[in-house]
């Protein structure tokens, strides 16, 4: 069996491989095969996950959130502190140079932040910094960041997603040329970009290390292959060292093949069911709290998480457990209990169930399993399958009473980016619950951690109690890697290649 799979995979790999630069330990080149190529290598001008991952390699942020402890550690900056709740004073390191030799100083920080914030420049991922108002140079190595209004996860953002561009080089070459030859301070430099094919990263030999540490492997080749079975074939035939986003079955089977292995890495991505509890999409049974509770009891989330997905955990709160503020001891938990679900449905006036449209965009098998569980208590959910962007727009237009979607919080380890995002009466909010909003606003509106936690806890309790949405489980990706590679997964859904090393 294994021989056959290896043979087939070899055939497939030889058929599909464009440039079979042999992967591996011998030539110290890590080949990472992934699905999507970023639409541009100008990080702030795109939102794709692969682009986000590259931002952590080519560039650096001011502070760095330690991947194990979650602690914010000095990185490009030596010190960041609030002088008042809407002002952050930043002191920078003095010994840092960009890949092209340009010195890093306050001008780079001020330029990057003000350039991205400016709405006229129309960066696609402007929201990464748009919570700030402006940056001001206070010395050659010191910057003052004005927030305008309180933004609690500012430290989190400055320690992860907000990376620094070189001002002189960027101004000289402009937005588009920068995307073709990006320059940063990070542990790797972009050595070769061949659009549609691959990207070569070379280790930055003069890297300062900081909180991230220097890269272990000297070269990374990032290749783009659309089809997961082909990716697996590449890995098994030795043309790739690392692949990811495999499903549980593929991971399980990969572990039976010699020379490669698969591990599940839990991520911050949360799957959830969203109910139109406010009735803004019209009249339907989900307006009734008992119906929503019934659905929450009807679905065996544990079974889907364990059997279909593997590696994730069932969630009781509408956030990922490590996120700041994601705790609420008094919130009710919905155990799998079809009898209770039926009883609740009968109390709600639907003893024989009802029919409703059920929208989803990914993991068709999860959606189907949930439809199966709902069918057991008499609810006939009709699947409406859509592309993510189409579904999101439809939700925002109040046309979706019931959906299964997922949210990765943009890798931001703070409730602000998920609970507040979905329940602050924005167009993504279908609950429109003023009590929940009140607590969320109070939590978002302070930087005192204890106050934030207290308010978020209340909000999360109300969301669960009123069953505005049902958090399902966290997502896990299976990573496939060659046995030579020593690589640890992290829940931020980011592949930190500079940490990888050979065994």
């Amino acid at each position, binding site marked *: 069996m294994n021989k056959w*799979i290896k043979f*087939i*995979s070899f055939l*497939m790999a030889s058929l599909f491989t464009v440039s079979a630069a042999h992967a591996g330990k011998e030539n110290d080149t890590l080949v990472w095969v992934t699905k999507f190529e970023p639409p541009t290598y100008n990080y702030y001008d795109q939102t794709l996950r692969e682009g986000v991952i590259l931002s952590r390699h080519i560039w650096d942020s001011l502070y760095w959130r330690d991947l194990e402890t979650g602690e914010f550690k000095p990185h490009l900056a030596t010190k960041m502190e609030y002088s008042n709740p809407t002002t952050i004073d930043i002191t920078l390191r003095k010994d840092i140079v960009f890949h092209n030799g340009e010195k890093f100083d306050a001008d780079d920080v001020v330029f990057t932040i003000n350039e991205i914030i400016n709405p006229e420049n129309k960066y696609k991922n402007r929201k990464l910094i748009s919570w700030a108002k402006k940056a001001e140079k206070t010395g050659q190595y010191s910057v003052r960041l004005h927030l305008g209004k309180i933004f609690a996860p500012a430290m989190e953002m400055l320690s992860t997603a907000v990376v620094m561009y070189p001002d002189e080089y960027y101004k000289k070459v402009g937005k588009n040329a920068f995307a073709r030859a990006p320059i940063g301070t990070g542990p790797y430099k972009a050595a070769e970009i061949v659009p549609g094919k691959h990207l070569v990263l070379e280790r930055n030999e003069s890297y300062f290390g900081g909180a991230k540490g220097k890269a272990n492997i000297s070269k990374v080749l990032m290749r783009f292959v659309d089809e*997961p*079975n082909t990716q*697996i*074939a590449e890995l098994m035939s030795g043309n790739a060292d690392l692949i990811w986003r495999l*499903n549980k*079955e*593929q991971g399980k*089977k990969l572990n039976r093949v010699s020379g490669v292995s698969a591990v599940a890495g839990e991520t911050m991505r949360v799957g959830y069911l969203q109910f139109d509890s406010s009735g803004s999409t019209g009249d339907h049974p989900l307006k009734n709290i008992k119906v929503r509770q019934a659905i929450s009891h009807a679905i*065996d989330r544990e*079974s*889907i998480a364990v*059997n*279909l997905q593997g590696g994730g955990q069932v969630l009781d709160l509408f956030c990922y457990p490590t996120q700041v503020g994601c705790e609420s001891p008094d919130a009710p938990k919905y155990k799998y209990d079809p009898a209770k679900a039926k009883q609740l449905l009968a109390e709600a006036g639907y003893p024989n169930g009802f029919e409703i449209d059920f929208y989803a965009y990914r993991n*068709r*098998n999860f*959606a*189907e*399993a949930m*439809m*199966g569980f709902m*069918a057991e208590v008499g609810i006939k959910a*009709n*699947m*409406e*399958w859509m592309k993510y962007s189409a579904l999101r727009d439809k939700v925002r237009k109040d046309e979706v009473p019931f959906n299964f979607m997922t949210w990765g919080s943009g890798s931001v380890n703070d409730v602000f980016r998920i609970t507040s995002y979905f329940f602050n009466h924005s167009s993504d909010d279908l609950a429109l619950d003023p009590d929940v909003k009140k607590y969320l606003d109070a939590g978002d509106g302070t930087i005192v951690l204890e106050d934030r936690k207290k308010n978020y806890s209340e909000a999360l309790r109300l969301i669960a109690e009123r069953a505005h949405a049902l958090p399902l489980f966290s997502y896990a990706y299976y990573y496939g890697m060659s046995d030579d590679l020593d690589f640890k997964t992290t829940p931020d859904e980011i592949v930190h290649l500079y940490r990888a090393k050979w065994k």
Partner: protein
Amino acid sequence: MNDISADHPKLDPDNALRSNLTKHLFRRISAHNSILIGGGVLGAIVLMALFAPLLAPHDPFSQDLSRRLLPPFWMEDNNPKHILGTDNLGRDYLSRLIYGAQISLMIGVCTAIISGIIGSALGITAGYFGGRIDAVITFIITTRLSMPIVLVALAVVALVGGSLHAVILVLGFLLWDRYAVVMRSATQQARNMDYVSAARAIGCPTWRVVLSEIFPNVVNNLIVIATFEVAHAILLEASLSFLGLGVQPPDPSWGLMIAEGKEFLLFDPWVITIPGIALSILVLAVNMLGDGIRDVSAPENRN
């Protein structure tokens, strides 16, 4: 029938001729392998679809996530309760395959009926009346032929949403072109026959001429095309379902089963192979039957 013709050979020559023809037809059919094989296989699939509730060992919709992707009987670790294994959600694969036959056949037959009615009506009208009417209908046929079926079907289904009814209607309203073309030329031939002129001469109304003189003489063309269109519709449904726009889960459609098996292609190829083979057999059977009917009903057209 044999007895009748043997008992009264001289009294009823008309009946004798008919019974001779029937005998001849039966002889032709029984000597024709593709009709026997195609018809036999198709008959078996039809019976399987009709008696699905009796034949299926399990409920095709009942899922058990802890028993998912059990392999079929010829592989190790198989479970004798699930001969063809279980799918991605732990549903019995054999039961889904049996119920899937219902959907494939229903789509094939309903589509062929809808498109057959539209196509024959247009074709016979054009062929019989000719002239301007023919020009207009030929234009409609050309317009239809210029549209790529799969793309149009995809677009329409994407607009109205995928469901069994939507697929049947969309395919029914798209696949009438071959009927129209063939019926038109067959009618053109038939309308110049002497018996048609005779019927007109004795003052039969047009509808009567068309229905009782023309139609019976072109109907064998209709049957042959219908079988091909059944196969065509089944394959198109599978394509649409494979692309996620056809029959919606949890209904067991073979195309959908193939789509769901796609991600297991490398390690569990049986997930995609089983419905794939079923689909191929069904389409092959329908096509063989169609070929056979053509040969038997009009051997002079054989080439």
